[in-house]
């Protein structure tokens, strides 16, 4: 495992938290008043980031299914890391959505008092919480043995943390290991339908809206699942390259598997995306064409052509196709895919909202909240930086001080 980046990334995360705290205080003190979105573009950068982290968690979810349900051996080395990554991504998703709510405090009780099960948002809330519970338990059972062992052996302040997480246990034998393995397997079984429903519901959340012609398609949930697996899979592949030790050639084996999977998913995603554009333009409907034009020739054309198609698709394709089995090329390709994927999410959310749904609406009121001209402002960026930094810090601390990387006895050694 490469810990040489740990100090640098930790400093980056702390700086991000400090810089973003101005935006966070502003948001918490003044509600949604400081944001740039309004009533015609009611969702902005934060929802795009929510979807970005949703995608990242989906890739990690897939790896945990491959590891603990289908028991594909090469993935065992990154199983606990993937489970922990699902948790960190869920944490970031939760923060982005909570801060996007106009009356955030009510989310903590109103879902329990007056839920509406006709709303997919209610189901997303239920499934999100189930995912959180399942992955908290799963991560815990995966690392429990290593934590108990560490509690006995590590001196200093960390020992107290390990003892706390051991919940009073001092010994961990083979029988307990087998019991925990069974628990993880059962949780993996439960997580399969819950996870699939969770990711598909997020797609259906947009697809059911009859007045949003780009979203209102049976293709949307499918596109969502493929997008999620692509971006999340790319992140897992990149982390595999960074975190997994290659002493026994395990890393290169994993990278070969993952590289091929990412190439397939990227190709599939681009085909689906091309179909969406082709069908949309062929309809000739003003609202659809206007939305698509927002993406291709609008103010943010560079987000689509340069960031998404150029840096996030073409270069990775070339690296994956011509880089052969070189793990470094695959890692770079995956890094570019997952980093630029927020552009895909942004272009999914904004263009359909950025079209006036009634003729003449644009001339009625001149007010920033009643305009489709949306560009994220400083507050939205600062809050985003704060949340991403918090997620990064949680991930760094978790992987550094908890036995997340290769905690399983059959995995590779936990390198220092």
């Amino acid at each position, binding site marked *: 495992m490469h810990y040489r980046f740990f100090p640098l990334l930790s400093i980056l995360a702390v700086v991000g938290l400090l810089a973003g705290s101005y935006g966070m205080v502003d948001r918490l003190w*003044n*509600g*949604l*008043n400081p*944001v740039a979105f*309004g*009533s*015609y573009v*009611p*969702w902005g950068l934060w929802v795009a980031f929510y979807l970005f982290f949703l995608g990242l968690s989906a890739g990690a979810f897939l790896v945990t299914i491959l590891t603990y349900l289908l028991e594909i051996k090469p993935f065992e080395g990154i199983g606990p890391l993937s489970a922990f990554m699902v948790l960190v991504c869920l944490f970031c998703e939760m923060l982005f959505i909570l801060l*996007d*709510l*106009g*009356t*955030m405090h*009510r*989310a903590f009780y*109103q*879902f329990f*008092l*007056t*839920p*509406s099960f*006709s*709303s*997919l*948002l*209610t189901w997303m*809330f239920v499934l999100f919480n189930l995912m959180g519970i399942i992955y908290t338990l799963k991560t815990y059972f995966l690392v429990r043995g290593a934590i108990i062992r560490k509690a006995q052996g590590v001196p200093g302040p960390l020992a107290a943390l390990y003892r706390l997480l051991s919940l009073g246990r001092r010994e961990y034998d083979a029988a307990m290991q087998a019991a925990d393995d069974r628990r993880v397997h059962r949780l993996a079984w439960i997580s399969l339908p819950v996870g699939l429903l969770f990711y598909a519901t997020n797609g259906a959340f947009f697809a*059911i*809206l*009859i*007045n*949003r012609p780009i979203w209102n398609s049976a293709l949307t949930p499918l596109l969502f699942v493929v997008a999620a697996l692509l971006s999340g899979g790319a992140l897992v592949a990149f982390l595999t390259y960074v975190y997994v030790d290659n002493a026994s050639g395990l890393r290169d084996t994993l990278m070969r598997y993952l590289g091929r999977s990412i190439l397939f998913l990227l190709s599939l995603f681009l085909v689906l995306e091309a179909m969406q554009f082709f069908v949309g333009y062929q309809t000739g409907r003003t609202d659809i064409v206007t939305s698509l034009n927002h993406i291709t020739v609008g103010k943010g054309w560079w987000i689509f052509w340069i960031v998404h198609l150029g840096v996030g698709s073409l270069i990775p394709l070339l690296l994956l196709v011509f880089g052969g089995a070189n793990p470094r090329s695959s890692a770079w390709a995956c890094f570019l895919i997952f980093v630029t994927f927020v552009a895909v999410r942004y272009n999914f959310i904004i263009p359909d*909202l950025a079209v*006036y*749904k*009634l*003729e*003449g*609406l644009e*001339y*009625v*009121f001149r*007010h*920033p*909240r*009643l305009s489709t001209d949306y560009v994220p402002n400083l507050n939205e960026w600062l809050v985003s930086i704060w949340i991403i930094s918090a997620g990064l810090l949680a991930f760094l601390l978790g992987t550094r001080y908890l036995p997340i990387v290769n905690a399983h006895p059959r995995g590779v050694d936990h390198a220092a």
Partner: protein
Amino acid sequence: MSRFLAVEDQLARMQRDLKRALAADPKTVRWGMVIDLAKCIGCHACTVACVAENKLPPGVVYRPVLEEEAGTYPAVRRRFVPRPCLHCQNPPCTKVCPVTATYKDASGVVVVNYTRCIGCRYCLVACPYSARTSDFGDWYTRGTPEGQGVLQGQRTAAEGYEAAPAAEYGKKWPPRGKGSPIGNARKCHFCLHRVAVGMLPACVTTCIGRATIFGDRNDAESLVFEMIGSARAFQLKAELGTQPAVYYLA
């Protein structure tokens, strides 16, 4: 018939219709509205009345008047389309609300419970008519220079006006800045607080062309019932199947 014969003001008839509806069994009443586009002159009086009645902050509007232009010069035509909430009988907005904060009440009016709304804005995205706006907590008076008043500061007076809550849904709301409806979805509610005490909605009484008609859609004697039956009547985006309770006369 002589065109000089006295004609009863529509408002008088609507007032009678309203009185009858309020006396009827509440279970049978279904409020509805008809907007005669041929009579609308685009004065925006209804928009202003609505803003005043409901004390709407900047960026929140319940009843804008859309302006549509057709043709090319010199053959140009212009028409005005007031757009309140259409109070769909099959509303896409209520289905998506995760906490049942917005729903269709017994009289068919789509309402928002400000004390339940979590401000997710899913209903704003789901509404095909952009009839909902979110209250982001903006103020008219914030950032404006203060002038000297005779008895009290101009800003103090203006802020006092802004801070005093409206009587929406017939409830007593906290002063502006102290919670809901800031952060909530807001929309036209047919001025239910006025209707409950026998007054027509603010947009109806202020319409100088008498283009807006309001009443019980189930009352066969009402003007609104009569107008809905007109051959000129149509609904906005009827193809979506939302079944608006607001009709337009072409």
